[in-house]
């Protein structure tokens, strides 16, 4: 627990207390909002973890949007034609690994401008997935995890265990990435090549190979984010990411490049999304739907403006390694 700051803990406790009060006041609606918050947070969180792992290794990834789209596309059509959802998920992951390999190749080996590299991924993904899109197909649903006892808990149960396995794995992967980054040799080396690659090189870390591995691994997290969107929408639609890959980048920055920070930020975004959906559904606010539609994007801009200067990117992010 020593990695968790008192401020973070304070906000977490406040949020929990508010949730309990709200639950006592109106259980059904609180559950609806919280449940929706977790679902909306899932792709943002996975996308943010993707960006975080790339940047911690010294590679900027703004192609998360395209990665999500490509993996959702592959996942949907493989699941649809094979009739097996697991094959679809595997196919989506494989597709995102290919996208990751492309990003690694262009930004690490070719030393191309990394922001342009991400943009190429985004434009290509939108064109590719729309071009090969076939209308009118369906896929089997993504199953949910069931853990006896835990799933019957009020509040936590429906939060984690009623949405399909990917929502659960998003929360689980936060812990994994955190432990990986701060508790293993691999993590230490990863942070080193993102901050001071030539120092890491001097002590014998193979920077090129580690960056390749991390970018591909991270892109698979981005792929999971796309598959998570697919899990909620249950079919592929053209341009279904709708800027979520970029919101994920804001989540990453707001979480200050830390896994648990990203989780807090993603849950905040998800909570506001859930609240908005509930208010809109109840007709509590008489506002044109387009203004509701703007909220997540305006929120992202505000978050960026608030967090921008405070979040210090890893020193070597965006700089190709030229050798010591």
């Amino acid at each position, binding site marked *: 627990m020593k990695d968790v700051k008192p401020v973070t803990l304070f906000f977490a406790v406040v949020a929990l207390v508010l949730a309990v009060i709200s639950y006592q006041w109106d259980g059904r609606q609180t559950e609806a909002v919280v449940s929706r918050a977790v679902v909306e947070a899932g792709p943002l969180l996975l996308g943010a973890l993707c960006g975080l792992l790339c940047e911690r290794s010294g590679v900027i990834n703004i192609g998360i949007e395209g990665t999500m789209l490509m993996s959702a596309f592959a996942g949907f059509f493989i699941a649809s034609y094979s009739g097996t959802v697991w094959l679809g998920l595997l196919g989506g992951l494989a597709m995102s690994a290919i996208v990751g390999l492309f990003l690694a190749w262009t930004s690490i080996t070719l030393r191309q401008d990394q*922001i*342009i590299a991400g*943009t*190429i991924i985004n434009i290509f993904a939108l*064109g590719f997935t729309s071009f090969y899109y076939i209308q009118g197909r369906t896929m089997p649903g993504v199953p949910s995890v069931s853990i006896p006892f835990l799933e019957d808990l009020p509040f936590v149960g429906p939060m984690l265990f009623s949405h399909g396995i990917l929502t659960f794995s998003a929360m689980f992967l936060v812990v994994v990435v955190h432990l990986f980054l701060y508790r293993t040799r691999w993590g230490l080396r990863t942070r080193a090549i993102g901050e001071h690659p030539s120092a890491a090189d001097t002590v014998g870390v193979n920077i090129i190979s580690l960056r390749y591995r991390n970018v591909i691994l991270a892109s698979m997290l981005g792929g999971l984010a796309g598959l998570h969107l697919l899990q909620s929408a249950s079919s592929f639609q053209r341009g279904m990411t709708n800027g979520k890959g*970029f919101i994920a980048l804001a989540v990453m920055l707001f979480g200050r490049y830390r896994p648990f920070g990203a989780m807090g930020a993603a849950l905040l975004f998800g909570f506001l999304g859930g609240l908005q959906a509930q208010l809109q559904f109840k007709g509590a606010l008489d506002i044109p739907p387009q203004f509701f539609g*703007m909220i997540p994007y305006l929120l992202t801009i505000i978050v960026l*403006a608030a967090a*921008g200067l405070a979040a210090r990117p890893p020193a070597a992010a965006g700089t190709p390694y030229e050798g010591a």
Partner: protein
Amino acid sequence: MTSPVTTDPEAGNQESSALAAGLRGLRLPIIAVFLAAVVGGILLLISGDNPFSVYAAIVDESFLSGSGIGRTLEKATPLVLGGLAVAFAFKAGLFNIGGQGQLLLGAAFAAWIGYSIGLPTVIHIPFAMAVGGLVAALLGAIVGALKAYRGAHEVITTIMFNFVAGNLTDYLVSRDGPWNDPEGGAIARTPRLQDSAIIPTWGEIPMGFFFACFFAVLAWWLLNKTTFGFEIITTGANKHAAKYAGINVNRIIILTMAISAFLAGVGGAVQSQGVFGRFEASNNTGLGFDGITIALLARTNPIAVIPAAVLIGGLNASTTRLQQDFRIEPEVVSILQALILFFVAAPSVVRYIVRWKGLDDAEDIQLTGGWGS
């Protein structure tokens, strides 16, 4: 394009060597387009089409007939301005991928001025364009200020503003919105512009194209012949050195973003005033992203943006024919664009595939340079 011509001691005649440098600069984009066509052809083969007949149809449809050229130039007009917007921002090390939102704002506000007030033509056309451009410029200035004072990276903020602008313009022309056309029924659009605000065509050639070319020359002049342009390029090359040299970097960032967004906004205005005669959201999809490809294909040179935009405009103009003759989805153009973008942005790949000696001096151009820039 930026080859150091004047430093070449063997350059006897400066004018002809400038031309030679220009031609040398052309090689990389041409090879990039060719390689993109090859890879695109393979993708077309996979989906069961003959790439040669597809490409022949594109050339025939967009570049070989009078009406085809007119249509291509019509499509190219907003693209010249969208490409200029991206290229101009690159000069200051800024990456404006919000051309789409800025273009929508420009298109909607120009249409509003165009239908709601009556003015003589000579005033009405430029006034509507200026309002469209300035509203977009205001958005650009906000993006610039967020970047300069709060460190919010423009790549994320401009994308987010795309969605904000999309929703806003959607609302303005929707049935509950103030600019809705009551005769439009279910279609969300503004009423038709008054004739005095419509940019005329000259035979097959839309006059808007000349406006766009005028802005290209203006941008070139501003960047290469004024102190302000020098300050922009210095900021783009090295922000810290620029600050040390006494340039107000924050001011440059805000103004550059505003001008960049202004150009994209005028591109939208030309769409409403020159092509459709009204604003309808679905008329403008995707144009903002084409600007990125065009700016890089032009190696961020404002004049070179014009032919690059004509090329991409020609691709866009052929989509209807491709759909009719080959049942190919219009998105094939986006794939080709992403491929062009890849090859043109990665000269090292081109040099690896095409091992011409002379290509080594094709300079890498200043683009974004990461989060910190």
